[in-house]
């Protein structure tokens, strides 16, 4: 039992950057902007975050620097799109490559050295709850932050008038305009927020989850995974977070298998990716619809609401008034 709690706890901890990044991307995409640069911005934010923390001796300062990097890259995409009418996907893709190369180049003198990290801070009382305490409440601050982010995002999106505006802008900008929302300003704001979360996720690798910096970066590929998780999660914060934990769980399983058998490492490492592709096929193919149709009547509506995964209708589209 203790062993299980320990494993689940480490999955929760390892999933944290993915949770933060994919919720950040969910926010951005919900407002109609695709930030495709995740894989690069996470790496650059991690590097800048680590180096800042290392040079200043302050992990919090490092975290802040990484957050700013993520925000700036996201802002580049939305500025290029709104002001210069450039395609979000094209700009995002170029920025992915650029940021990843920049991280490797600028970070080359700082690899494999110890630096400041966020320590584990058990939450009083809650940490001593049997089983659950071990899973959820004996972590560093970033893990707790991801919990707050998850519930906060859901609350803002579905319970406040800001959330209505956010979703409306990504869905039908003309309506948002008619209801008095400033479409482009809303896009700037939430793209910046989402990008900041991506940056924070990057820095959280270097300062807490997989401390330090390395060439090639340890989190390489996780940006693409986060993008896939957003789709898997149907652009809903809870489902997205579920996807991130599921993926971290699969990864943990793969590494256990690898330790206990003599399967080649490469093969085992590929397992979570393959499973991810399969789940993506399942949620986006006609499979779900068929599954829903065989379910009994009243269950159908619940299932359909939960499994619904339509992208925001105005994702990637520009808005102008006339």
């Amino acid at each position, binding site marked *: 039992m203790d062993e299980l709690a320990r494993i689940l706890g480490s999955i929760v901890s390892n999933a944290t950057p993915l949770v933060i990044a994919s919720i950040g991307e969910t926010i951005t995409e919900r407002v109609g902007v695709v930030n495709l640069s995740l894989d690069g911005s996470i790496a650059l934010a991690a590097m800048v975050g680590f180096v800042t923390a290392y040079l200043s001796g302050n992990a919090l300062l490092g975290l802040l620097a990484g957050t700013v990097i993520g925000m700036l890259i996201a802002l580049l995409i939305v500025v290029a799109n709104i002001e210069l009418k450039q395609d979000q996907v094209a700009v995002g893709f170029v920025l992915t490559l650029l940021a990843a190369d920049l991280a490797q180049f600028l970070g080359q003198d700082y690899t494999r050295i110890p630096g400041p990290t966020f320590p584990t801070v058990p939450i009083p009382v809650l940490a001593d709850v049997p089983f659950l305490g071990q899973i959820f409440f004996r972590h560093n601050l970033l893990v707790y932050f991801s919990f707050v982010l998850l519930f906060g995002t859901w609350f803002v999106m579905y319970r406040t*008038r800001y959330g209505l505006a956010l979703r409306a802008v990504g*869905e*039908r900008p003309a309506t948002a305009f*008619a209801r008095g929302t400033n479409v482009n300003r809303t896009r700037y704001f939430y793209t910046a927020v989402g990008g900041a979360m991506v940056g924070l996720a990057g820095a959280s690798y270097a300062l807490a989850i997989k401390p330090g910096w390395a060439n090639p970066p340890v989190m390489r590929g996780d940006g693409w995974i986060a993008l896939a998780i957003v789709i898997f999660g149907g652009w809903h914060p809870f489902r997205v977070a579920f996807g991130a934990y599921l993926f971290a769980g699969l990864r943990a399983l793969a590494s256990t298998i690898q330790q206990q058998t003599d399967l080649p490492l490469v093969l085992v490492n590929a397992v979570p990716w393959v499973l991810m592709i399969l789940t993506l096929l399942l949620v986006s193919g006609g499979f779900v619809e068929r599954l829903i149709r065989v379910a009994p009547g009243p269950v159908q509506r619940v299932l359909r609401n939960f499994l619904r995964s339509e992208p925001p209708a105005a994702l990637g589209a520009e808005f102008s008034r006339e």
Partner: protein
Amino acid sequence: MSIEVRHIHKSFGPVHANNDISLKFDDGRIYGILGENGAGKSTLMKILSGFYLPDSGEIFVDGKPVHYTDPQGAIEAGIGMLQQDPLDIGPFTVLENFVYGRPDGALPDWQAAREQLQQLSARFHFDLNPDVTIERLSIGQRQQLEIIRLLALGVRVLILDEPTTGISALQKSVLFGSLKRLAKEDGLTVLFVSHKLEDVLELCDEVAVLRLGRLVGQAKLPVTTDELVAMMFGQELAPPSHEKVAPGDVVLEVRDLTVASHRVTVEGLNLQIRAGEVVGLAGLDGSGQELLMRASVGLLKPLKGRVLINGQDMTGRPFRAFLEAGVGFGAAGRLEEGLVSGLTLTEHFALVDPEQRAWIDWERARAVTEERINHYNIYGRPDSPIETLSGGNQQRVLMALMPSSPHILVLEHPTRGLDVESARWIWEQILARRSEGTAVLFTSADLDEIMTYSDRILVFYAGQVTEVTEPESTTVEELGHLIGGQGIRKEAAA
């Protein structure tokens, strides 16, 4: 609240959509804004409701000049508009849609909003469940939601742009009832935009008529249809003459045809259509008529039976083969299926060029396009993207794209959403081809249209087909009974 516009001008590029329009609307009255497609009605209404800014001109509310620059500002000034395609958010629930845009704080009072929503919909006998998503509502219900949303925001001038297109007869009578109550009981000013004369005659107290961007007439009701038509078009119109053509050889034949969708099945249908015949299909949407249409052009595979074109068995052949065999098809969704949004007129004509060469001869394509634009009286330029044309002009393009002398034309709702003149023009084109021996198979929701033009009528009800061989001696009422499923049993018994 009275509202007045003075000397409004608005141009889109070369198009003078509103040309010096001055009008005054008083409270407690319902005004019809009439005019054919492209007359500038929507433009004027969008200016009133803050969606467009006029190039020049002024707006007065209760005699005082007002200056707003967006829809929110117009609503604060008391003017709200229900757009032709209701501006709502598909994945939102009815309640979320109702709340979005209200000047609440950060946390809306969801409970109070729910109660207000329910109260207002009960008052007008609207059928709105706060918890279903907009995607699951009909156009009529989405309009109802917009109306009560605007009322809840306190608007005193309610503008409705073509609200009777795409809603059921029942929803229409509920809508008209509530508009009358809003004007008479609450003293609202209602502006009702339409190109349908009968709707305006039924509902409005006064009408204003626009033509080509200008105000061309105003009248207090009652007026006669003829007077309104004269104002809208400058002259009175009779339907184009259509003498019967002696039927020729069988062009389309279906034998023992069974086709099905998930809603309805048509079983064992036999039908022959001869050259020069016009066959109209009547019925409520989804009664099976569209299955027959689609099977006749190869877009739907029959479960059983054969489809023959000019005696040649085409069953199971692809759409392309039907086109090559001389079938012309006009789909109901103009921009979804018939035309390609984003392509220009020239590109459309290049696509259907009978000489399918790998390289497009743009000069030739442009020349062809210009010739068609002239010949078909299309209001647009060769390089206009198709979606910038009005509905009537898109329909003209669709006609112009069809092969010039097909053996049979299969047309879904050829005049849906068009004004009287455009519809008449479309029929002139269809009848001209018919007099050269083309057979015509068409559907329409407009019974008058079906009665006027058909040599034979097939009435569909839940997949069952009744044939009316003599439209001249049938009344609209009788046809209506058949469409509603009454009389099918009677016929079987007789």
